[in-house]
């Protein structure tokens, strides 16, 4: 026997090793195989099902997860045979015989034996009842605990005309399985004897048992790790909805079905093939571009549904294995479309390789911020239903026409699904939340998708930024059709319009003040004399600025007109301003002089020339205007506005702009010399320009009053009645304090400056009285956008409307392109209302006054307002807030102005400002600073009904007044700390219920005893959605009441939630019994009370 040589030894070792490896792999595969498990009463359910089961609890009976199929069957239908075929399917597949229960918040499944008796319910009906019947079939809730998870039914229209409805709960069957169901139905119907289906050895319960073990292995950890990095820093998609997300959403939805144009479908298929990418990747890339334009976000995270059939054993099963994955599109750096498609294709392949981690598990791992009624992580799906998954419903000898049942529910905010149709076309199936979106919006979504796909395929090497998303008609509509046609402009100067009126009717009353009259002649002559002084003594020339520091009264219009006639521009100064602010403006504007009176003169810095109107300075000056040459582009007035930089800027408004405003105003409101117009606005604001000059250039009468009288609602009411005022332009808050009943002469309310609700309009609008919502920054001259409220009552805040005459409104994205209808963008204004710029600030002027790329004539500018607006479907602009007041709260975009507006609608609140504390940290929270008389809890409740939960401020600080900067803006630095001294310790638990709830939270969330306080928020403490159901279950054990899990989202603070439990317990007993108990307790002495309390504790 010879010793094996070394070579042989190596071979043997290798062979041995190979055998061992094979063995191990086989053993491992054997261990990992799905095997039958014993059927017991309470079996585990799959993670996909667990998550869906939880969501099913959250929607409390809404048929959100019911999957319907309905079809018209024309021809000789063998009903017993159809019924038998359905029975056969139910008998073969356990999923259709599964019920779901729960123990301590953990769901389990029970499989029932095949049904002993079987009947397909047949109902007689008519053509008109079809839709109603199929809708009713899908809308009925499934009792998953006690009843089968399916519902079959036949509507008999005639002997050879039927409608078949098949509905099941998604928890037992997914899209892939529906195809199997349809095929098995066909085969069994075709040949009840011949069709033999092998008995299944594995069923979904076996998969569920296998999955539990698999989740304990190493593989899921690897996949979860992948998802952690894949969603790292992910920005939730914040598509601005048509309506505010309700605080308690119902899941109401609609289905919209259509087809892409065949030509486009063909090109999509060709391109996908040529590029070697999936149809899903190519279409999703187009959709990413679209959402990038809609939201301005560069990180577009969408959900997509994959089949979950990653193991061959699952394939014959009918069950719910599909899984949602997240696919992120990265549009940073403006990629080339073709590259975006390939990147998306790679992302999808990666997601497919890691699709075994159930989505619910992922959500638990990632703990994203929760919103009631909004799916965690991704609320917006883009998915493709591949051709092999499209169920083909066929019954031999019968013509099948598919019908569309409307469950009227939706699972996500939007699911945009491309159907890979067998005929080569591409279908579009969209399920959307009808609480959030209008139908027109969804139709436009398809239109924009079609446009962007068409453009992208025609030039795949273009950068995504260059692609068109709007069809030409919409482009023209928003830029041209919804802006006024250029109209007539008056080429005169502002004061020339006045002098013409003075010449026509010199004795007409120009102004009423404190019961006295000022005639047009008096005003004309006084302003002439002043102009001479300014020209002669103070060397005023066109472009020079003259300060006007006067209290309300006849002098004010005289001074303003006098400066104009001298060729200068007036700068109104508020006598209430702090001296530093006055000094700053006078210096900044380099005034030639200040027109004032002796009692105010001490406010004027010593080095500034002054002209005192209450002296003899005007005596002996000519009562005719001085000869000066002024052009329409010369500045008529300068008004300071506070800028974001903190230093006020002087806006230079030329004659052209203010003349256009006044003539437009007169036409809009048909102003006549008989009109009496209130002068309410502070003369330092540009609404006063309207009050004074819209009136004087129309020959009408200004009605003025001292400040104190205007600010007292009773006196103001008296003034309006006594003077029979016909038009007012006052802030909505002031109008709200007045009584419309006694103001018969008031024919125009021109209200603006801040947003207001429908109530105000409905209270004031009436036949013979127009109610307008006006909008305008000083840079576009008083008001440039207007909405005339319709005579019928409004049910929401009015829009701000459209551009006024000779002006144009553009809603543009950050790249200065028009945005589609319904998409927020920054309002840009162009046309006759534009100011010249900011006095002495060329840089800031150039930054805000941009070239107008859409102008009908070359070289025009447009002003970037900084206001966020959108077009509604009627072509009216809706005001949404300031572009720069959006903040991020745990990744969610929040418009602080929206919250402030909601707070200000609460009774007793006068003013407020909302700020973010700890911004950029996971514990970021909102603090509201409120001026007024209000109950904090009542205000919080009010807000919970108006705003999504994450927008309801956590803390409320009552202030006497808001701290202001010298420029009149809220001084954020001086807002007090709402939680002085850290304030992080838990608030005391004051009731027994609170203490017991705290114990439940602590044990559920693994927190230290004593760490949970009455003001702690379940979700901030780390509670996730699945723990919500567990918590509800424990609360049921402890308090014998069953709360709707959604309550926790509305009342996440421990004290609030405990109060809900108390309410529920009282409700359980009924009022009478509670009253009896209360009477008993009330009758007890203090000693007895003490004794009883001690006993019970």
């Amino acid at each position: 026997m010879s010793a094996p040589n070394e070579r042989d030894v190596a071979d043997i070792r290798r062979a041995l090793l190979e055998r061992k490896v094979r063995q191990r792999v086989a053993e491992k595969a054997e261990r990992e195989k799905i095997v039958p498990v014993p059927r017991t009463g309470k079996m585990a359910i799959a993670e996909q099902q667990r998550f869906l089961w939880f969501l099913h609890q959250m929607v409390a009976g809404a048929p959100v997860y019911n999957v319907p199929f309905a079809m018209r069957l024309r021809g000789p239908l063998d009903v017993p045979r159809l019924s038998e075929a359905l029975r056969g399917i139910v008998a073969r597949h356990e999923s259709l015989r599964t019920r779901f229960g729960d123990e301590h918040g953990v769901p389990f499944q029970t499989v029932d034996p095949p049904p002993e008796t079987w009947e397909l319910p047949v109902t007689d009906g008519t053509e008109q009842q079809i839709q109603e019947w199929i809708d009713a079939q899908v809308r009925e809730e499934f009792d998953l605990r006690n009843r089968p998870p399916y519902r079959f039914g036949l509507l008999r229209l005639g002997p050879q005309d039927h409608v078949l409805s098949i509905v099941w709960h998604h928890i037992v069957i997914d899209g892939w399985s529906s195809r199997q169901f349809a095929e098995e139905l066909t085969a069994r119907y075709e040949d009840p004897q011949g069709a033999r289906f092998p008995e299944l050895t594995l069923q979904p319960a076996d998969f569920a048992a296998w999955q539990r073990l698999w989740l304990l292995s190493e593989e899921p950890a690897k996949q979860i790790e992948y998802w952690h990095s894949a969603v790292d820093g992910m920005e939730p998609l914040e598509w601005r909805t048509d309506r505010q997300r309700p605080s308690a959403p119902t899941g109401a939805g609609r289905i919209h079905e259509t087809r892409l144009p065949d030509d486009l479908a063909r090109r999509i298929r060709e391109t996908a093939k040529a590029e070697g990418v999936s149809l899903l990747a190519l279409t999703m890339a187009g959709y990413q571009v679209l959402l990038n334009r809609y939201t301005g976000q560069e990180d577009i995270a969408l959900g997509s549904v994959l089949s979950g059939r990653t193991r061959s054993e699952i394939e014959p099963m009918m069950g719910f294995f599909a899984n949602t994955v997240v696919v992120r599109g990265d549009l940073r750096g403006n990629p080339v479309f073709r590259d975006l498609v390939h990147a998306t294709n790679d992302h999808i392949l990666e997601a497919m390789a890691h699709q075994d981690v159930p989505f619910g598990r992922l959500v638990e791992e990632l703990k994203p911020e929760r919103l009631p009624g909004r799916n965690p992580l991704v609320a917006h799906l883009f998915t493709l239903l591949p051709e092999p998954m499209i169920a083909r419903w066929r019954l031999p000898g019968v013509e099948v026409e598919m019908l569309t049942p409307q469950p009227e529910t939706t699972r996500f905010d939007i699911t945009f699904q491309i159907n890979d149709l067998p005929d080569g076309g591409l279908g579009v199936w969209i399920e959307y939340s009808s609480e959030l979106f209008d139908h027109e919006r969804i139709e436009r979504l398809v239109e924009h998708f079609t446009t962007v796909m068409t453009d992208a395929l025609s030039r795949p090497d273009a950068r995504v930024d260059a692609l068109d998303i709007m069809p030409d008609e919409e482009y023209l509509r928003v830029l041209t059709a919804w802006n006024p046609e250029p109209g007539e402009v008056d080429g005169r100067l502002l004061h020339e319009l006045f002098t013409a009126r003075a010449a026509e009717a010199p004795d007409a009353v120009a102004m009423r003040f404190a019961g006295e009259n000022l005639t047009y002649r008096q005003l004309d002559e006084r302003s002439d004399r002043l102009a001479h002084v300014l020209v002669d003594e103070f060397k005023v020339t066109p472009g020079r600025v003259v300060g006007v520091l006067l209290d309300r009264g006849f002098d004010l219009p005289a001074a303003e007109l006098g400066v104009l006639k001298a060729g200068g521009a007036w700068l109104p100064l508020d006598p209430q301003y702090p001296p530093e602010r006055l000094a700053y403006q006078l210096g900044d504007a380099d005034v030639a002089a200040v027109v004032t009176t002796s009692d105010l003169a001490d406010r004027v810095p010593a080095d500034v020339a002054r002209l005192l109107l209450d002296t003899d300075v005007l005596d002996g000056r000519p009562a005719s205007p001085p000869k000066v040459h002024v052009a329409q582009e010369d500045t008529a007035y300068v008004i300071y506005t506070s800028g974001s930089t903190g230093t006020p800027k002087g806006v230079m408004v030329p004659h052209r702009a203010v003349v256009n405003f006044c003539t437009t105003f007169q036409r809009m409101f048909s102003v006549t010399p008989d009109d009496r117009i209130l002068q309410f606005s502070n003369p330092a604001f540009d609404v006063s320009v309207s009050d004074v000059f819209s009136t004087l250039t129309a020959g009408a009468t200004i009605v003025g009053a001292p400040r104190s009288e205007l600010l007292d609602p009773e006196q103001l009411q008296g003034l309006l009645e006594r003077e029979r005022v016909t038009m007012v332009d006052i802030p909505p808050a002031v109008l709200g304090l007045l009584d419309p009943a006694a103001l018969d002469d008031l024919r125009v309310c021109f209200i603006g400056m801040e947003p207001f609700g429908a109530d105000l309009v409905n209270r004031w609008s009436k036949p013979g009285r127009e109610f307008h919502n006006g909008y305008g920054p000083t840079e576009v001259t008083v008001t440039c956008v207007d909405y005339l409220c319709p005579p019928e009552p409004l049910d929401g805040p009015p829009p701000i409307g459209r551009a006024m005459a000779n002006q144009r409104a553009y809603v543009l994205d950050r790249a200065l392109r028009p945005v589609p209808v319904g998409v927020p963008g920054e309002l840009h204004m162009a046309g006759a209302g534009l100011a010249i710029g900011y006095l002495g600030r060329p840089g800031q002027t150039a930054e805000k006054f941009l070239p107008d790329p859409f102008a009908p004539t070359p070289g025009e500018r447009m002003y970037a307002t900084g206001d966020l607006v959108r077009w509604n479907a009627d072509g009216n602009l809706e005001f949404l807030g300031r572009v720069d007041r959006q903040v991020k709260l745990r990744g969610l975009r929040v418009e602080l102005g929206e919250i402030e507006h909601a707070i200000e609608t609460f009774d007793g609140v006068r003013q407020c400002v909302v700020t973010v504390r700890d911004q950029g940290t996971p514990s970021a929270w909102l603090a509201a600073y409120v001026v007024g008389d209000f109950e904090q809890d009542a205000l919080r409740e009010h807000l919970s009904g108006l705003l999504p939960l994450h927008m309801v401020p956590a803390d409320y600080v009552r202030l006497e007044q808001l701290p202001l900067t010298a420029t009149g803006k809220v001084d954020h630095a001086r807002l007090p700390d709402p939680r002085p001294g850290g304030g992080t310790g838990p608030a005391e638990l004051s009731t027994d219920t609170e203490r017991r709830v705290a114990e439940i939270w602590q044990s559920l969330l693994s927190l230290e005893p004593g760490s949970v306080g009455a003001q702690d928020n379940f979700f901030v403490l780390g509670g996730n959605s699945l723990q919500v159901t567990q918590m509800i279950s424990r609360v049921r054990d402890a308090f014998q009441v069953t709360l709707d899990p959604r309550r926790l989202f509305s009342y996440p603070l421990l004290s609030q939630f405990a109060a809900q439990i108390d309410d529920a317990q009282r409700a359980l007993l009924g009022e009478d019994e509670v009253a009896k108990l209360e009477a008993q307790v009330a009758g007890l002495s203090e000693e007895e009370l003490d004794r009883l309390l001690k006993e019970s504790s």
Partner: protein
Amino acid sequence: MEAQYVVVINHEEQYSIWPAGRDLPNGWRAAGVESGKSECLEHIARVWTDLRPISVRR
């Protein structure tokens, strides 16, 4: 990379800025400066000394 702009000027010798690489709006010409936004605005602050349209400068 910081977004690039060009300094532009119109027939009234009003200055403004426009995203670099995009077609200039009708009636505007480049004034020879291309840079980041703040550099462009600083340039304008130096050269645009009279904000009034040229037609009314005297």
